[in-house]
């Protein structure tokens, strides 16, 4: 479904990605783990072309997409939830969700998906008229995820979905991601500091260090790998 071939991305003169190769098949949950600054977020941004790769290609459903504007990529069903909750602070919760469905015209489907996200996060239904910027941090995180779901993505890129969530909700959020994957048939690419939880729901994972993929394997195998345990699982 998605393939990165020798992707190099830069910030000014700094080479943040030094030839990334990875593959995601339809229906999978793939996780990318690595230290801060290793290039995780840059990888996601290079896929949605928010950062344009200077070399290499991003191929989505057989088509090279790193020459397309980010909006067109969203239209193709590839949607990113960026790190640090970028919601529209002056729009209400409901308006934020409607913005997520902006490119759709299947009224019934939108209605159904709205009910679905409200069932995942009932607080959003309660607060549908509150402006996004006054939600609590965790509530904003729930809104950011829900808004992405409203676009009915085929491939969902999640950057740190557990950030700012209470312990009791963190366990739920990973269940929810798994549920989205199974029930909505959404392929998931997941970046998380919380590598432990991410690996528990992932099928496969890649390890990124210094802008390069250094390991890739089934999630189970990585979880029992002593190097991974020491570096990323805090064991």
């Amino acid at each position: 479904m998605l393939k990165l071939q020798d992707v190099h991305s830069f910030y000014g003169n700094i080479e943040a990605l030094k030839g990334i190769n990875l593959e995601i098949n339809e229906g999978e949950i793939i996780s990318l783990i690595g230290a801060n600054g290793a290039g995780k977020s840059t990888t996601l941004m290079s896929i949605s072309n928010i950062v344009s790769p200077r070399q290499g290609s991003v191929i989505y459903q057989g088509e090279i997409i790193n020459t397309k504007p980010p909006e067109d990529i969203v239209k193709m069903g590839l949607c990113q939830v960026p790190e640090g909750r970028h919601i529209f602070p002056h729009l209400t919760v409901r308006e934020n969700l409607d913005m997520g469905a902006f490119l759709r015209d299947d009224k019934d489907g939108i209605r159904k998906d709205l009910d679905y996200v409200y069932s995942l996060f009932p607080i959003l239904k309660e607060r549908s008229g509150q402006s996004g910027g006054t939600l609590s941090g965790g509530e904003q995180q729930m809104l950011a995820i829900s808004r992405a779901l409203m676009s009915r993505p085929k491939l969902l890129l999640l950057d740190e979905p557990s950030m700012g969530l209470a312990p009791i909700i963190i366990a739920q959020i990973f269940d929810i991601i798994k549920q989205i994957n199974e029930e909505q048939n959404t392929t998931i690419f997941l970046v998380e500091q919380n590598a432990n939880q991410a690996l528990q729901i992932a099928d496969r994972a890649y390890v990124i260090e210094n802008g390069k993929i250094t390991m890739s394997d089934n999630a189970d195998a990585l979880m029992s790998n002593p190097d991974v345990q020491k570096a990323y699982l805090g064991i």
Partner: protein
Amino acid sequence: MSLILDVKKLSMRFGGIHALTDVDLQISSGEIVALIGPNGAGKTTFFNCVTGIYKPTSGDVLLNTPKTKNIRLNGLKPNQVTIKGMARTFQNIRLFQSMSVLENVMIGRHCRTKSFIFGAAFRTKFTREEEQQTIEKSYAILQKIGLEVSANELASNLSYGEQRRLEIARALATEPALLLLDEPAAGMNPQETQDLEALILRLQQEGQAILLIEHDMKLVMNLSHRIYVLDYGTLIATGTPQEIRNNPTVIKAYLGEGADA
């Protein structure tokens, strides 16, 4: 140990939402106190009320520092609260992204300099010397939190974890009697969180009183002397980490069964 912060029956409503109801909270000098609770429990609202961003619906906020005795902070503007001796970091990072790391800290220092008060209109030898001191002190703060190598980088070039540390540096620059941290570990990896833990402990050992909001329970349990737990705007428990960890109400509302704490 003397009382630094004494909050009495603090309440805050937004229309029909009771974000805080009759919250009492005390912090003594040298303490690390944590405020925890579910998403939307009212923790950030508590910070906003005591630092003057929101005007509480009712209740009292009293601050005691070596310089000021029992002043009521209610009704003061955020910058006045900072001058009185309380500084905070923000859950959603608020740095000047297009300024350098050092400049971000210098802005924090300005509320403690005389030129800030008399304005830069008289560029005397005094203001120049003070400016030089501001730079030196700001750099020293960056060294303390381990960001000195990035002093001249733009704030926007820092990683998320580094930006959180810079927020702390900016707050420290105001020389607070009480430092409020809103989720300082959010977005940090385990290694960075450990470094943060060491940093907070070091600050405490230097005498800094700290009120900490955080969802990383390992950090909270390792650092806190006492913990307050909010749920739906009401305190449901207070106690030592040991007491809170084993409190069934807190486990049910917040920690969950499999909590790693």
